[in-house]
């Protein structure tokens, strides 16, 4: 009994609610004859797509900047890296590698500037980060529109500018990581004896995400990582021990921005398309919500929060529409539920912050 009590004390209420919701969807799905393996496959794929974005929240939260609401800055940076690599003519794995290297370089630059900005506006980081992210999205929209390319898969046939939706299939990068060492388990036969799909494991993508998680975990056990944590936990303590709080915060935001930039590459390959223009606009919110669902607060987070939160929230968002769609005959309540859950959880985290309520 005590064990149960302490479990409920340790697991945040938000995590339980989302878990309950997802479980409900799965149960309803089960009775509506959905294949469980297919529902879980979708969730795992989405975990791979969102993992790095959610991981990007960890350094910024730990450094005391708060969740990285300016995720779109990193995303457009990664998109820019991809566009440049494609335009040069890379394809397949080369495209993946070159764009990742470029994303890291550009991400560092953007993250440095963004970190400086966050230092200049201490105390109002979250609101300003949000609008900076929005502004960056539209600034880059202008760049997409003015970008000149001869590559017909990238640009429009006539006139200037890049397509809204760039298929990665002609570049051979479509699901390239997902398919790397991909395998399928729990395959079964249906009533007619036909073999039907099992649980698909996109090994390459998962490896990338989990490797990044491992590196992040290690980083926060190193000198600089520990310094970042201390700066976020207690800036005065950090100052008294000779740390340069501003520099730590910049470093944290650079890492966060780079993760977002690389994250969109992983996302795009798994999705099979690169989405330009206003697609990155609202990407920060599900990522922020996910890490909070996993048990983080606006001031403290761990890698484990990323893994739990991404699975739960993406599970809910991914499995909801088909199940509800069948249940309510086409009317999809998931989007509404997603908006309430996702934003409700962010509001809850804001209300829990220091200085609130008093």
């Amino acid at each position, binding site marked *: 009994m005590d064990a149960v009590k302490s479990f409920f004390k340790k697991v945040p209420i938000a995590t339980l609610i989302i878990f309950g919701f997802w479980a409900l969807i799965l149960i309803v799905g089960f009775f509506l004859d959905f294949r469980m393996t297919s529902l879980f496959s979708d969730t795992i794929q989405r975990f791979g797509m969102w993992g790095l974005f959610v991981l990007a929240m960890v350094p910024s939260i730990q450094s005391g900047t708060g969740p990285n609401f300016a995720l779109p800055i990193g995303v457009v940076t990664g998109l820019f890296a991809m566009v440049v690599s494609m335009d040069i003519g890379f394809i397949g794995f080369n495209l993946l590698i070159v764009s990742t290297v470029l994303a890291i370089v550009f991400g560092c630059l953007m993250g440095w500037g963004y970190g400086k900005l966050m230092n200049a506006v201490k105390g109002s980081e979250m609101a300003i980060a949000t609008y900076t992210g929005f502004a960056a999205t539209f600034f880059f929209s202008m760049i997409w529109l003015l970008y000149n390319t001869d590559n017909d898969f990238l640009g429009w046939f006539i006139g200037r500018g890049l397509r809204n939706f760039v298929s990665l299939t002609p570049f051979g990068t479509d699901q390239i990581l997902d398919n790397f060492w991909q395998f399928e388990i729990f395959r079964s036969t249906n009533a007619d004896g036909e073999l039907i799909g099992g649980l698909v494991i996109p090994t390459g993508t998962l490896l990338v995400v989990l490797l990044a998680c491992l590196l992040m975990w*290690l980083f926060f056990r190193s000198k600089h990582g*520990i310094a970042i944590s201390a700066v976020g*936990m207690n800036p*005065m303590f950090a100052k*008294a*021990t*000779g*740390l340069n709080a501003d520099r730590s915060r910049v470093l944290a935001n650079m890492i966060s921005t780079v993760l977002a930039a690389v994250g969109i590459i992983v996302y795009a390959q798994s999705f099979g398309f690169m989405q330009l223009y206003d697609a990155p606009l609202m990407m920060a919110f599900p990522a922020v919500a996910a890490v909070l669902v996993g048990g983080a607060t606006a001031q*403290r987070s761990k890698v484990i929060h990323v893994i739990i939160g991404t699975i739960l929230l993406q599970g809910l968002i991914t499995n909801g529409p088909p199940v509800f769609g069948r249940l309510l005959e086409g009317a999809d309540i998931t989007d509404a539920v997603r908006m309430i859950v996702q934003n409700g959880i962010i509001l809850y985290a804001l209300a829990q912050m220091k200085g609130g309520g008093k």
Partner: protein
Amino acid sequence: MSQNLLEFKNVSKSYSGNQVLKNVNFDIRPGEIHALIGENGAGKSTMMNILFGMPVIHSTGGFEGSVEMEGKPVNIMSPFDAMAHGIGMVHQEFMLIPGFTIAENIKINREIPKENALNNVMSSIFGKRMKTLDFKKMNQDARVALDRLDMTIEEYTLVQGLPIGFMQFVEIAREIDKTGMKLLVLDEPTAVLTESEAERLLKAMRSLAVQGIAIVFISHRLDEIINVSDRVTVLRDGEWVATKDTKDTSAIEIAELMIGRKVSIEREEGAERELSKDIMLSIKDLHVAMPSERARGVDLEVRKGEILGIGGLAGQGKLGIANGIMGIYPAKGEVVLDGKKLPLNNTKQVLKESVAYVSEDRKGIGLLLDEPIDSNIVFTDMQVNGNFLKAFGLQDSKAISEHAKQMVIDLDIRCTSEKQHTGRLSGGNQQKVCVGRALTQKPNLLFVSEPTRGIDIGAKKLILDLLLKLSREQGMTIVMTSSELAELCSICDRIAIICEGKVAGILAPNASPAEFGLMMSGITDTDSVKEGGVS
């Protein structure tokens, strides 16, 4: 003799078993200026908190004894009750809104509504708060209050940009504008003023007293107390010591009463010890911008191997010295360590020079409360000197935990293990963790500020013994800042007293109470007080 306006009768107060006020009696008559003096923790603030019915009193079980006004017991449960009884206070921190005019500040939440037909209609529909305000009348009232203080400044001037001295007067004007104001409490009103401003304030106080307002004057400046007050009450360690007619007493007597002989921790060795002639640290004209503890030109020399005490009243700047040298607050001046000039505002460099610091703010600056003991202990050494690290800059968990285990034994830190979060430890054990962190740096010079603040009596002794041991056995130079004169006297070789941001003088630990008392009030030109002098 006129009737007492206010009377405290046998008032006692304790916070969770810790008695801070013991059977205090205090009275004040209409039109009297009654000075209240005492060291930090003497009970002045607790008395005022009781007088104003502050929540901190009533949420901790109230107080014993009674408070009477004009002969009748009163029950003051909130600051608004106090206001209703005609009691006003001018705080050390100004409660003024910069974007408002003087009149608006004087009338805050006591604005005068206009009486007209429209207002009557609006207020009957939307409530009283929808009445428009009669700014003309408000300005007139403000004018009257300012005139009573001989202030000629226009009442519609914005407070923003006023000199500090004017703000003080606006605060007082706000209090005396309240109807039925009988008693005014001024808490260290001259601390922030220039000399001429202070002069003006004292004059205004006298004129208010003549108008019949009683004034409780809390101050550390003995000369001003002698100058302006009718009577003076001295408190010490929560107890009433004496109430004297000012004309019958002297600064020396008040100082003596204030400090008393209260050395509770006995000194185990003689006061005189042969000190090294070598200078370990020399401080010249140090200015530190630490809020409410500003240092304004400190000159001080610390000798090798000594324990130098820094004492003085709260807010005088004694805490600013260590904080400034360590780069926690902006500082300027010259600090030379062992013949080498220390860079200011560069914490890391100072730490690298084997200078360690135990902060007065244990929970705010000293510790990461949500981290285990071991990470706290090695933190500074790891970040500054790069110890306890493995390849790729990863932490060496094994070495960290071994070192912490040793520290737990050496310093006798009571904990479940070295992995316990410091937030769960008692105050004394937290302080030992802070000391452990400083010692891990293997310092030559150690600053400790308020090492026994908020620690029970047994743990206090342990900490002081530890400091003494470090000095005697390892020859470590220690600069200890403390508000508790007794503990300074118990282990220090010399004690520097800070007053108004400067070193008022240096005393031997067995100097007389009057010498300490006078020096804390900034009076240094008395014959009996010489640098390092012994009476």
